[in-house]
C-alpha cells in the first residue's frame, strides 16, 4: 500500500516535469499568485498596525475609559467617579504600558486673522514624550513640558490659518463644565506637522492642568483615561476584563475602534478592497493555471486509458492527478509566501512616497496621517492563511480534470491513434 502510494506520488511528481516550460510557467503563476498578496498584505497590514498604534498613542489609547454618555456628546461635564483609583490599579496591571489622563475641550481658536474650530487636548507632557509621535513632529519651537500653563502646541495648518508663530497668542472660546462661555488666551510654544489635515489643522495640545482650569475641573478629573497596552492585539480581551473588574457605574471601557470609528471603518474598508483585489488576482492566476492543468491532463488521455486497461484503478489515477496539483501547490505556495515576505522585508524602511510618488499629506486614514515609511507586519497566521487559501484554490483546479478522467472510455481512446 505504502509503496503503491509512493509510486503514485513519484509518477505524479515526474509527470509534472514532463513539460518543464509549462510547469515552470504554472509554478511561476502560483508563486506570483501567492507572493503578491502576501507582499501587499504584509505591507498594508503593517501600515494599519503602525497607524492604529500611532493614533492610539496620540489620542486616547488602545483602550479608553470614559463616562458612559461621553461618546454621545463629548461634553466637559461628563467625567467619571474615582478616576484616580482606577488609574492607580491600571498602572499596577502587567498588561498596561502606560495610562494617559486626558482633558478634551472643543471650541474655537481665534486671532485677528480668523477663527478655526479646534479640539484642545490636555495631557501630561512627560508621559506624552515617551509614547506619542507628536513630540517628534515638532517643526518649530518646542514640545510641552510640565507646568507650561498657557503655552500650547498647534498644528502647522492651524498656525497658518490663524497666522500665528511660535510665541504668538490666540484666544480659545469654549464652555466650562457649567456650560458657561469661557475665553482664554493661549500662546504657541511649538508647531507640529504630522501630515494629517485633521491633526495639523484642528488639533491643539496643552498641559492637562491648564485644560482642567479652563474647563473648571478639579485636579483629579479627566475627560478620558487613555490606556496604552503592551500588546495591542489582545486589547479586546483586556477591555472585557477591565469592564468587569474596574468600571464604575457611570464609566465604560471602550476600544480604539469605538473611540475612532472612522479609522476602524476606513481600515476595514481598505482591507476589504485589498482583499478583493487580491481575490481578483488569484482568479486571474488560477485561470491561467487551470488551462495548464487541463491541457496536461487531456494530452495524456491515451496514457491514462492504457494504464486503466492494464488494471490501474480509476481512484489511483484520480489520486495521481490530485497529487500533481498538490505538488504544484506544495512547491509554489511556500515559495510564494517566502517571495512575498522577502520583497516586503526588502522594502522595509523605504519611504512609500518615494516609490509611488505623491504627497504624504494625501495618505490619511479617517483623518489621521499615515507613517509612509514601510514597516511590514509579518503575521505568520496571516501569511499561512494566504498560502493555504491559494493552495486550496489550486486544488480546486484538479476537479474538472479528475472528472474528465473518470469518464474516459478506454476502448475509444485506445482505438484512436
Amino acid at each position, binding site marked *: 500500500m505504502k509503496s503503491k502510494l509512493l509510486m503514485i506520488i513519484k509518477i505524479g511528481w515526474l509527470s509534472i516535469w514532463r513539460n518543464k516550460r509549462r510547469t515552470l510557467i504554472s509554478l511561476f503563476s502560483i508563486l506570483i499568485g501567492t507572493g503578491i498578496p502576501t507582499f501587499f498584505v504584509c505591507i498594508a497590514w503593517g501600515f494599519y498596525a503602525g497607524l492604529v498604534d500611532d493614533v492610539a498613542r496620540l489620542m486616547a489609547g488602545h483602550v479608553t475609559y470614559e463616562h458612559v454618555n461621553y461618546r454621545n456628546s463629548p461634553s466637559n461635564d461628563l467625567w467619571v467617579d474615582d478616576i484616580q483609583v482606577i488609574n492607580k490599579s491600571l498602572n499596577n496591571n502587567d498588561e498596561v504600558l502606560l495610562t494617559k489622563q486626558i482633558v478634551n475641550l472643543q471650541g*474655537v481658536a481665534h486671532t*485677528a486673522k480668523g477663527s478655526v474650530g479646534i479640539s484642545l487636548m490636555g495631557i501630561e507632557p512627560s508621559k506624552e514624550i515617551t509614547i506619542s509621535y507628536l513630540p517628534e513632529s515638532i517643526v518649530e519651537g518646542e514640545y510641552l513640558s510640565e507646568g507650561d500653563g498657557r503655552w500650547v502646541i498647534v498644528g502647522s495648518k492651524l498656525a497658518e490659518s490663524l497666522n500665528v508663530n511660535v510665541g504668538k497668542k490666540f484666544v480659545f472660546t469654549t464652555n466650562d463644565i457649567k456650560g458657561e462661555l469661557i475665553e482664554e488666551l493661549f500662546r504657541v510654544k511649538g508647531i507640529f506637522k504630522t501630515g494629517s489635515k485633521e491633526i495639523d489643522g484642528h488639533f491643539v495640545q496643552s498641559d492637562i492642568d491648564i485644560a482642567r482650569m479652563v474647563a473648571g475641573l478639579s485636579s483629579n478629573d479627566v475627560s478620558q483615561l487613555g490606556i496604552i497596552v503592551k500588546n495591542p492585539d489582545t486589547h479586546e480581551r483586556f477591555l472585557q476584563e477591565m469592564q468587569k473588574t474596574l468600571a464604575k457605574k457611570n464609566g465604560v471601557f471602550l476600544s480604539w475602534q469605538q473611540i475612532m470609528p472612522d479609522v476602524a471603518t476606513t481600515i476595514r474598508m481598505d482591507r476589504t478592497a485589498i482583499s478583493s483585489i487580491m481575490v481578483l488576482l488569484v482568479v486571474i492566476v488560477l485561470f491561467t493555471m487551470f488551462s495548464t492543468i487541463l491541457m496536461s491532463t487531456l494530452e495524456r488521455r491515451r496514457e491514462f486509458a492504457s494504464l486503466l486497461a492494464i488494471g490501474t484503478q480509476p481512484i489511483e489515477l484520480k489520486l495521481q492527478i490530485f497529487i500533481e496539483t498538490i505538488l504544484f501547490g506544495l512547491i509554489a505556495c511556500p515559495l510564494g509566501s517566502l517571495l512575498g515576505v522577502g520583497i516586503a522585508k526588502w522594502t522595509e524602511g523605504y519611504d512609500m512616497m518615494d516609490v509611488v510618488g505623491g504627497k504624504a499629506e494625501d495618505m490619511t486614514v479617517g483623518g489621521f496621517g499615515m507613517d509612509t515609511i514601510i514597516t511590514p507586519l509579518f503575521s505568520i497566521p496571516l501569511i499561512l492563511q494566504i498560502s493555504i487559501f491559494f493552495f486550496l484554490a489550486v486544488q480546486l483546479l484538479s476537479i474538472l480534470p479528475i472528472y474528465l478522467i473518470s469518464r474516459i472510455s478506454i476502448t475509444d481512446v485506445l482505438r484512436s491513434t
Partner: protein
Amino acid sequence: MLDQFSTMMRLTIIATCVLFKVFLSSFAFASNLNPEKILDSVDDLYRSNTSYGTLTLSVTTTNWQRTLTLEQWSKGDDRHLIRVLKPKKEKGLTTLRVDNNVWNYMPKVKRVVKIPSSMMASSWMGSHFTNDDLVKQSRMVKDYTFSITYEGEREEKNIVEISCYPKKDAAVVWGKVEVIVYRDDFIPLHIIYYDEDLQLSRTLNFTNIQMMSGKMMPTQMSMIPVDEPGESTAIQWKKIQFDLPINDDFFSLRNLQQ
C-alpha cells in the same frame, strides 16, 4: 511681491512710529486727561441702565448688500434682545443674550437655538460682527494697559488718541487697539484694531453725531475689515431711549418666542 514688501515696510515704519509715540507719550503728554475715564465713557456710550431703540444694519460684501431694520432692548451690561423688523423675509428673527449665552429664535420654524461656543466666532446675521462681539462685555480698562499717545489737532479735529495694549493673559486677539475720541466730550471717532504683529486689522468709525434722548452720540457706526477690501458693516441708530423701566423677565426665552 514688491507691493507686499512695501506694505510690510510701511507697516513696520508705522509700528515703529507707534511704539516711539508710546515711549514718548509718558513724557510728552503729561496732560490732565484721565485715559481710564475716557475708555469707560466709550464703553458706556450705548449702555445705560436700560435702553430701547431702533436701528438699521447694512452689510456690504463683495457679492451682496443688504439692510436690516432692527429693534433692540438692553438692561445693564448683560441683557440684550434684538428683533428683526425688516425685511419681511426675516421679520421676527430674534437674538437674546443673557450673560454669556446667546439664543436665536427663528419664527419660520418656531424654534429657539442656543449658539454654542463653537459658533461664537461666526458672523452674526451675516455681518462683519461676530456673535462674540455681541457677547463681549469686558471693559477695555480690565483687559488692557493704556496710555494717551496723542493729544491735539488731527484732520482739523481736536482729538485724544489712547493706545491700549492687552494685558499678558487677557483673552484678547488684538495686539493693540487705538481709541480716538474728541477731546471735548470723549465721543469716539475711531477704534482701530491691530493684530499681534501690529498690523491693521479692522477699523470702527463713528460718525453723524446727534442728540438722542438727551445724549450726544454718534448715530452711525461702520466696521471696515482690512483683509476684505470693499466690505463693511454699518449701523445707523434711528431712535434710542434710555432708562425705561424694563423687567428682567423681558429677557427670557419665553419672551424670545413672542
